[in-house]
């Protein structure tokens, strides 16, 4: 079961490595991770997508809480009723000849993806949506064109409703 863990922590030297280290040290998996400072420059926020049942995730969150720099930890099952989450995908594809370029353009229009860079032979496509939709888009692109490389941001998410990491 995919779970999203949100962590608010002090922006100190080595704080991120303590979080990541804890996962490997205790045998928990990280599917993806994003980290960036918050509106309070002294704090960072990390979003981690992990795999595990509720008991394991509870254990992870307790261990995360023990880290001295960690202020708050919260976890939810990764589904859209709990959480608004987005991922960015960039995909560089071969786009040679009028027909192929048109086909890719049409695909992007259907998905509301953008073409953000062009060369005579390449397009860079940008797509922002949930991880699930990103997977779907990437599959459609692969069927349509030759993919040169891709990069995904990992999940960035925020819980719905009143629940907040800020106390």
């Amino acid at each position: 079961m995919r779970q999203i863990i949100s962590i608010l922590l002090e922006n100190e030297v080595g704080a991120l490595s303590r979080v990541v280290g804890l996962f490997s040290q205790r045998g928990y998996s990280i599917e993806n991770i994003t980290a960036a400072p918050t509106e309070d420059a002294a704090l960072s926020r990390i979003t981690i997508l992990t795999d595990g049942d509720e008991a394991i995730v509870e254990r992870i969150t307790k261990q995360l809480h023990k880290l001295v720099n960690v202020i708050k930890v919260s976890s939810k099952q990764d589904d859209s009723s709990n959480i608004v989450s987005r991922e960015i995908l960039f995909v560089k594809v071969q786009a040679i000849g009028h027909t192929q370029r048109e086909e890719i353009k049409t695909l992007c229009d259907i998905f509301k993806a953008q073409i953000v860079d062009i060369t005579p032979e390449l397009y860079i496509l940008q797509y922002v949506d949930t991880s699930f939709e990103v997977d779907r888009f990437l599959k459609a692109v692969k069927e349509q064109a030759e993919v040169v490389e891709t990069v995904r941001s990992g999940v960035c998410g925020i819980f719905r409703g009143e629940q907040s990491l800020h106390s």
Partner: protein
Amino acid sequence: MTMMSGAQMVVRTLEDLGVESLFGYPGGAVLDIYDALLESKKIKHILGRHEQGVAHAADGYARATGKVGVCLVTSGPGATNTVTSIATAYMDSIPMVILTGQVGTPLIGSDAFQEVDTVGITRPIVKHSYLCQCALDIPKYIRQAFYLASTGRPGPVVVDIPKDCVRPSMRFEYPEPEGEVKMRAYNPTTQGHKGQVKRAARMIAEASHPIMLVGGGAQLSGAKDEVRAIAKRFNIPVTSTLMGLGVYPSTDRQFLGMLGMHGTYEANNAMDKADLVFAVGCRFDDRVTNNLAKFCPAAKIVHIDIDPASISKTVNADLPIVGDAKIVLNQFIDAFNEFDLKENTEAMKSWWTEIEKFRHIDCLNYRHDENMIQPQEIIESVYRTTDGKAIIATDVGQHQMFTALYYKFDEPRHFLTSGGLGTMGYGFPAAIGAKIGCPDAQVCLFTGDGSFQMNIQELSTCLEYGIPVKIFILDNHTLGMVRQWQRMFYKGHISSTNLNSNPDFIALAKAYGHEGIRVEKPSELDDAVKKAISMKDKLVIVDILCNTDAKVLPMQQSGGSMSDMFLSEE
């Protein structure tokens, strides 16, 4: 306004924190700190002979006194040599601050001479760590380190100090301490949840087969009086983990002995039959529980621990209470008074009848032999001679378990042993630290001929500072515990456990300027122990040849329940 260098700030901050004993070993990166240390009148520096020993001594000091143990080592190998000691303290939640030198900040990351990523290497085995960036970080981080080490669930904290931060020519205004340290993201829970305490209090009073399980958390929080008062109030049988020994008096009728892999028959059977386990500051590790699926099938678990992550980690707690053991137990006493809860006399009478049957097995009985000393006899002899009042350090192995079972600890902080990590070589330096912290106490070490050789160099430290610890080597010419497993579970294949080239420990003691006594016959044992203890100002090594094939029994059967045990050789 006091201007001082970073090096002077290290010393001054430690002085302000009340540090009297600093265990250390100098080197390039900490030369300036050592120079500043010469000016200190308040701090006594104890020079060890290896950084592992230095840091274990700080650990032993902390365990015996309850204060934070502090050590100072240089960068690179100085720091890496403390890794085992830090891990030892971490596993047993011992408050310790490790100050490590580091190469200058401009050199960090350049593979400079004696550079190592100390913060990185120690990350999984510390409560927290700091890398100073400037001189003014030093007082701030050291104060935070002491605060972190000694509050909440205690543990070791590393402060890594680059050489340019302690440069004597760079002077800054010393920031005077301002009351208690406050940290935004660190706020341990000490008070138990009131509703949970009340519910648990009723469960304890209503249980017909309750047992109290005391762990290292009760030891660290100083909950001796509370544990004793509650056990007495309800006439509850008490058992203890290795780390909890001494919190409840071992000589008291209600004490069943240690539980777990080498626990007593009565403790493990009482656990197995209990309908309520009242666990105070323990973490249910695998040496305690045996097979988790078969652990205490009939029992509700009330679990007090200051670390929420220790609750329901292995054994599911039916009623968890996060908080400091001493504070929470006082809340329990209030609740007992509020509801006027008393001993369930009838139920306890039948419960004790059952327990006395377990006790009747007399599982610690062992066979004596007039020609060969049994290891248990050694512990018992020292116990008698010291009136059971000595501070005892051990290493790891058979002698450690024999000590836990046969030395009846009646007071907390008297048994110093590496429980979680199981570090051979821990005992001797820990005994040194304990003697420095408690100079009036009788400090003894039980060790093995294997373990002792892992930090034997500290004999030199003892000569330098006149540290008269008494060392009893249970000398069986083998790595006893490993041999026991080889004999029991590896078809008797003895692989690399014979120690046939031991030094002459008596000659060695003398070479280091100490005393040595060899004991070979059971008839000589008591006199030798008495003689050693009577030499008050001397370190004495008593090398006692004992049965190579003795086994630590009873022993739980792997994969079984608490009560599935081997009781004898047969």
